[in-house]
């Protein structure tokens, strides 16, 4: 692997205090992760996956939405076509992680590979938003990213295990509004990210493009296409 061009950049500071702050910032999403993890574990049991299949899928894939969609369309036979369609499904639903990890690079790029790549394996939507929001406020302690990623990962692994064992006993998350925790948290994160009406034109572009893609294309492309559209709009906004 060749050296990135900014290899000389200062290695970001990683502290225990930052890790604890990241863990604390992740608290609001834990109820949602538990409810979602229970559902993923219960689905794995219902689809006939073994205890270890469920455990290792969550450990190695660790992307609940793509897992639950994949398991709902779980193939009867795992031939090359079935595996290719599972790969395409994961690529579509998880393409947003490509954008998220790319956006962390200017901040965390100088960390040693043995630290950052395991950290990126547990990168999730909430841990990314927490980290980017912290960074936008001027923070630079990389421990926040690790704390906000590690605690949800541990909670997730417990929840999917419990969900697998409890199976059909898992209650309907809709009753307590738990299915809305992630969207509510994401929307709340927009408040600290607000930088005036002009900058938020990028968000409007993202939302409108996502709605159009959702209506016209369907599937899961709308998040990544909308995100790219909004990001590009944001990049060109202040040129005028």
């Amino acid at each position, binding site marked *: 692997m060749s050296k*990135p*061009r900014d290899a000389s950049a200062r290695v970001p500071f990683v502290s225990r205090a930052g890790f604890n702050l990241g863990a604390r910032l992740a608290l609001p999403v834990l109820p949602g992760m538990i409810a979602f993890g229970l559902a993923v574990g219960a689905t794995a049991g219902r689809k006939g*996956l073994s205890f270890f*299949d469920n455990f*290792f*899928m969550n450990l190695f*894939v*660790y*992307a609940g939405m793509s897992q639950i969609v*994949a398991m709902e369309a779980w193939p009867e*036979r*795992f*031939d090359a076509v079935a*595996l290719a369609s*599972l*790969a395409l499904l994961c690529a579509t639903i*998880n393409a947003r*992680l*490509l*954008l*998220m*990890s*790319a*956006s*962390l690079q*200017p901040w965390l*790029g100088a960390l040693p590979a043995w630290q*950052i790549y395991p950290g*990126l*394996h547990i990168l999730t939507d909430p841990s990314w938003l927490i980290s980017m929001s912290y960074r936008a406020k001027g923070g630079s302690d990389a421990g926040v990213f690790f704390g906000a990623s590690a605690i949800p990962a541990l909670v997730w692994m417990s929840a999917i295990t419990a969900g697998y064992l409890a199976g059909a006993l898992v209650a309907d998350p809709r009753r307590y*509004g738990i299915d*809305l*925790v992630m*969207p*509510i*948290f994401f*929307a*709340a*994160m*927009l*408040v600290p990210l*607000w930088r005036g009406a002009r*900058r938020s034109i*990028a968000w409007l572009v*993202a939302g409108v493009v*996502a709605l159009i893609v*959702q209506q016209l294309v369907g599937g899961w492309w*709308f*998040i*990544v296409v*909308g*995100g790219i559209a*909004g990001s*590009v*709009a*944001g*990049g*060109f*906004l202040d*040129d005028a």
Partner: protein
Amino acid sequence: MMHDGFGVPAAILVMALVTHAMRAGGFWLMAFMPRSPRLHRMIEALPGAVVAAAVLPFIVREGPVAALAIAVAGVVMLVTRKDLLAVLTGMAVAAGARAAGL
């Protein structure tokens, strides 16, 4: 054709490789991108853009209860700046609206 006993582990492996490639790949590729103020602004705009692109279609699909819960949570966040309080209020609004048959 693959032996059936290896089907599920093979599926997990494929899903894991593709997903990890997304998490590691964006970060890795970004190191080769030339730095510019525009790239900086694109990265700054990305969190809000991804949230808008995920949440707006979600609201359209889920309907008025989701819209109400998210709007109330947004107002609570705006006033108090406490995300945990905003999330709990939003959940309570959704649970209440559904219990009321909305």
